[in-house]
């Protein structure tokens, strides 16, 4: 790795969904891979996550949703980031996301979508290659 500042990642759960096995496993894998990782804990609103992301000055937000409410919850998060001039923070979405919704989420501005069979290595790899906020 280069000596540039470490990539900062906010792992987040939005909505009422309590499935946190995946988000915690990914958080740990990212930490082990050398990223700085903050985890919001459960049941956050999109607004709260955007505020935390700006405060923590992160490069990447990893949002985990297994309840099926992603189409209702991810767009408000993207909007809340835009409203704070933080639209360049890369938003990754993970969880139970049907194929048809993955393209929709990417069109709306999510940087990448990972399904529940995706490996943590794939997430680590993606962030290493695309995660730095000033890259674009």
């Amino acid at each position, binding site marked *: 790795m280069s000596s540039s500042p470490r990539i900062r990642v906010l792992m987040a759960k939005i909505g009422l969904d309590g499935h946190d096995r995946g988000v*915690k496993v990914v*958080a740990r894998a990212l930490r082990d891979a050398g990223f700085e990782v903050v985890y919001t804990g459960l049941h956050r609103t999109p607004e709260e996550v955007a505020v935390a992301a700006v405060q923590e000055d992160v490069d990447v937000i990893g949002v985990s949703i297994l309840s099926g409410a992603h189409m209702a919850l991810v767009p408000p998060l993207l909007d809340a980031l835009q409203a704070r001039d933080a639209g360049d923070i890369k938003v990754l979405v993970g969880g139970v996301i*049907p194929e048809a919704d993955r393209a929709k989420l990417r069109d709306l501005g999510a940087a990448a979508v990972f399904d529940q069979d995706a490996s943590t290595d794939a997430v680590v790899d993606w962030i290493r290659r695309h995660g730095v906020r000033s890259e674009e």
Partner: protein
Amino acid sequence: MATTGSTGSVDLGALAAAQAEWESTDVRPAAERREQFETLSGLPVKRLYGPADVAGVDYLEDLGFPGRYPYTRGPYPTMYRGRPWTMRQIAGYGTGRDTNGRLKYLIAQGQTGISVDFDMPTLMGYDSDDPRARGEVGREGVAVDTIDDLADILDGIDIGTISVSMTINPTAWILFAMYVALADAQGAPRASLSGTVQADILKEYIAQKEWIYPIPAAMRLVRDLIVYSVRHLPRYNPINVSGYHIREAGATAVQEAAFTLANGIAYVEEVRQTGLAVDDFAPRLAFYFIAERDFFEEVAKFRAARRVWARIMRDRFGARRPESMRLRFHCQTAGSSLTAREPLNNIARTALQALSAVLGGAQSLHANGMDEALAIPSELAMKVALRTQQIILEETRAANTIDPLAGGYFIEALTDEIEAGIWAYLRRIDDLGGAVAAAQQNFFQAELADTAYRYQRQKERGDLAVVGVNKYVDPAGAGVPFALHEVDADVEARQRERLARVKRERSGDEVARALAALAQAARGDGNLIPPTIDAVRARATLGEIVRALRDVFGTYVEQPVF
């Protein structure tokens, strides 16, 4: 030295010599697929098990007879020869009417019990018109705001004769109150009501993560529910102490059983504080375990859990009634073992897991749908899952003798090993001050985060094979060859409109009085079920009831560990 193993009297010394000779002559370890084999939970698995592995088993003390202490062989004397397990496929989506249609379909297909899944707002205590409920109403389960919604769910279903299981935790006491009030209104005698609410709040803080109040207040609600239920609904199971979610959050089989039984101990201690004798309520405690993919380990886990619980109840709590020592459990196949890729393979996985539940002596069973990893189940997926259960019962004949794997060297050795692992964890949890204290110290949460991470690494290294995902991956891709359940885009608006109508038609004064009385009771130490029944009768909403007590009890805040 003789053993009581299934082959009768054996000279263990001569046997060991013969086995050593066989191993040196016939066995080539280098020809085996791996150097070491282990169970899904990491217990070592030997090449061969024999009489020496069960030499310590005392038949009457450790196995006994079905329906007799220590219940290793099953909780009832005739098991499935008398009454098959209850086939209880979960249903829940949309509004009460939507779910009612699914329940009636499943009953028409031969289902023998009802199980209702609720949407996230209902589980967490928010009404459908709450901003926090946006996008979640009727999505993962059915929406319930008032007693009228539960009435819709159960419309035309005779709750005096079919048991109703409700998968609900932080708001369980409210759904229970609605159920009792509904039965009263329909004229069904309370003594005839069977069924259950999950109401296992401790595993929420540990694993499933649905909560409202701080742990002591939440424990009080569970206690009030159990006490009220045993006094008024003698056939009702007011709690399902659940290992399922603990396992799905990353536990091993040993952790699942141990943490569940530790929570069971905590509930017994909580209810005993009211002065109720153990034998007056322990017979109504029920359990809920997962059937995961390691077939023999799961069968052994069910048997070990029954044995440990019997010993806890007899020796730790001084229970005298056999029913207090007899562990009964509902079982569900493992959702997280199922894959989004090549989803038809999930039918095979679920069938094998369901068979392990039957061979392990489950009292009721939900088999997951083939679409579990993709969406909430479609009608077709639930039909196939129900048919899977029916095939096990009617075609395989696996349920025609009791505990058929008993006496198998491997099964008995594994049962003993899991039992020993459970006791070791129970001692550690006691040392931390019990399950409530251990949960407050994040003990369980940290243990689960560790094992979940280990499983993920194993999966990624290929040590944990998942067919079609990390092994035998189809280069042509893996599409979904069936239709998925579609969430009705209108459901949120329809449910909000329905709630608005109920609010218009009820008496606001009556609701306010009932909520004030409930909050007043919560400040004291009276049982909260009667004032909750009054509130739901007045058409107070679930969200209003939750808020009334939040003002008294406060809110739980997690300090997450990963």
